[in-house]
């Protein structure tokens, strides 16, 4: 018996020794990313309602067959996010409290290195008036070829902060009473949507001082059919869907916003079935001719944040629907990548990111950015 056991051990040792031994490994290694991201990558902003200080922006590779999750940056307390197209640096508007959830508040814009995902600089915002609200793309914007960075403030006085991007110098706060958010307009300015169904358009000088301010005549009715504050821009024209399915184009190429003729997203038959836009980021555009709008049937007063059943694709030049894409797991937000074969990212009802081919409308796979408490609401295609 002892001999048998000894033989067994010998055999097992032999077989163990015959397997290739794993080499020793280095510790302390950290991944990096390319300084310029592939166009199939996307930023997914988790607003983290269940722990607002833990907001984050996750970087996903939508096209890869594996290792899709590339990394993340923080975006604390109703954060804002934007990526520079010129330098590819990343920026988050954030709020911090001295004792995490309490104590003195500090607002800042954090600058992140896209390759290392480390914070490399910050702009402290005096007054701590950065608007704390559910993530909006138009709360943090660049204007004038990214020379200026604009941030939306609400305290509840409403202002737009003007910052010089390269020097990070805070130039000015421009009051926009009764109006909201930042839609880059003209050479060096912005427009804001206003409570009375108008827009205000402001141009400023290199010192951030207002040089012109125009209130556009009322062009929509916020009571009967409000415009979503979300938009997709194609050739300088911003396309705003309305709650009941109109599309309002606004020409933002000049110094004053010019509302153009609105057109309908729905046919009479579709209107009768109450097909309406809905979700959070309800619209995305390919920057050329197509806009993608999340749509749901049987709309009602209050359904404008409901999940979509279909994604409708419109050619803004012909003003016609070119495709309807059924959404397998619903849709709360949409973004289209800038890649050669564009991909559609849809935040689904389970707060995952569903990926569809923009060309064929076919669902390909679903990606997660975390556990059950994540609340990804806005996505930004890599530039």
């Amino acid at each position, binding site marked *: 018996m002892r001999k048998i056991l000894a033989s067994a051990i010998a055999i097992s040792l032999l077989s163990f020794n015959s397997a290739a031994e794993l080499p020793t490994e280095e510790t302390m290694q950290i991944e990096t990313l390319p300084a310029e991201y592939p166009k199939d990558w996307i930023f997914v902003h988790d*607003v983290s*309602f*269940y*722990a*607002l*200080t833990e907001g984050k922006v996750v970087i996903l590779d939508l096209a890869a067959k594996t290792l899709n999750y590339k990394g993340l940056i923080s975006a604390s*307390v*109703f954060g804002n996010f934007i990526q520079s197209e010129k330098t590819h640096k990343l920026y988050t508007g954030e709020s911090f*409290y001295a004792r995490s*959830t*309490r*104590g003195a*508040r500090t607002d800042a814009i954090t600058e992140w290195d896209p390759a290392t995902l480390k914070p490399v600089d910050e702009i402290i915002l005096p007054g701590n008036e950065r*608007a*704390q*609200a*559910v993530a*909006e793309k138009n709360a943090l914007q660049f204007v004038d070829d990214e020379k200026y960075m604009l941030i939306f403030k*609400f*305290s*509840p006085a*409403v202002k737009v902060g003007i910052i010089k991007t390269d020097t990070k110098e805070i130039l000015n706060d421009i009051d926009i009473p009764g*109006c*909201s*958010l930042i839609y880059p307009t003209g050479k060096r300015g912005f427009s*804001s*949507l*206003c*409570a009375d169904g108008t827009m205000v358009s402001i141009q400023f000088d290199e010192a951030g001082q207002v040089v012109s301010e125009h209130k556009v005549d009322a062009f929509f009715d*916020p*009571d009967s059919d*409000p*415009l*979503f*504050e979300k938009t997709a821009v194609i050739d300088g024209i911003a396309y705003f869907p309305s709650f009941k399915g109109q599309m309002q184009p606004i020409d933002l190429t000049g110094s004053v916003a010019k509302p153009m003729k609105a057109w309908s997203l729905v046919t009479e038959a579709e209107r009768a079935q109450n097909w309406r836009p809905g*979700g*959070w980021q309800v619209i995305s555009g390919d920057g050329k001719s197509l806009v993608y709008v999340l749509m749901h049937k049987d709309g009602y*007063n*209050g*359904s*404008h*944040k*409901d*999940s979509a059943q279909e994604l409708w694709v419109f050619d803004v030049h012909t003003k016609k629907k070119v495709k309807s894409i059924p959404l397998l797991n*619903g849709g*709360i937000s949409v973004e289209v990548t800038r890649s050669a074969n564009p991909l559609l990212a849809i*935040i689904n*009802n*389970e*707060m995952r990111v569903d990926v569809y081919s923009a060309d064929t409308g076919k669902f390909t796979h679903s990606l997660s950015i975390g*556990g*059950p*408490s*994540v*609340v990804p*609401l806005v996505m930004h295609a890599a530039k």
Partner: protein
Amino acid sequence: MSKFDKIFEKSARDLARTQSRRSFLSKLGMAVVGVSAIPALPVARASSNPSAGFSNGVLPQENNNPNDPGDPSTCEYWRYCGIDGFLCSCCGGSVTTCPPGTEMSPITWVGTCLNPADNKHYIISYNDCCGTTSCGTCFCNRNENDKPMYRVFSNNDTNWCIGASSQTYNCSTAIILGVSADN
């Protein structure tokens, strides 16, 4: 309450009386977050089963007032027609009170909801409770008459805890301010 806050509250109340719409708070929420844990809206709201309103692990609250019908721990409760956040009723507070350790924001967004018991519209003040981390249970988002951020006093996506001394959002109440002039 500061003079500023009083002015603000008055204007908010006036707005509600004259314009009859609601608004609300901070985190938007649409969507089911953690499917089984939170019956969130509006996705789950499509389901009209009232019993589906309980957050998993939150027991029903008895309500014997026939004039104020419904369970305030469910998203279907009539006062929540424009709410967006965690229900204080599930968080150690109630529909009119904040949980211990928090502070009620004096700045408020107001809405108008129909009480099915008397078929009257009531002005509802969705004061946030602030100063601790998110309650995390009974997430509820309904958007009747909610407007985008350019109508901020009718917008439930804004953190109204900016009116409190400690601004972290915890939960939301739904307090009756009066009967709407619209009735």
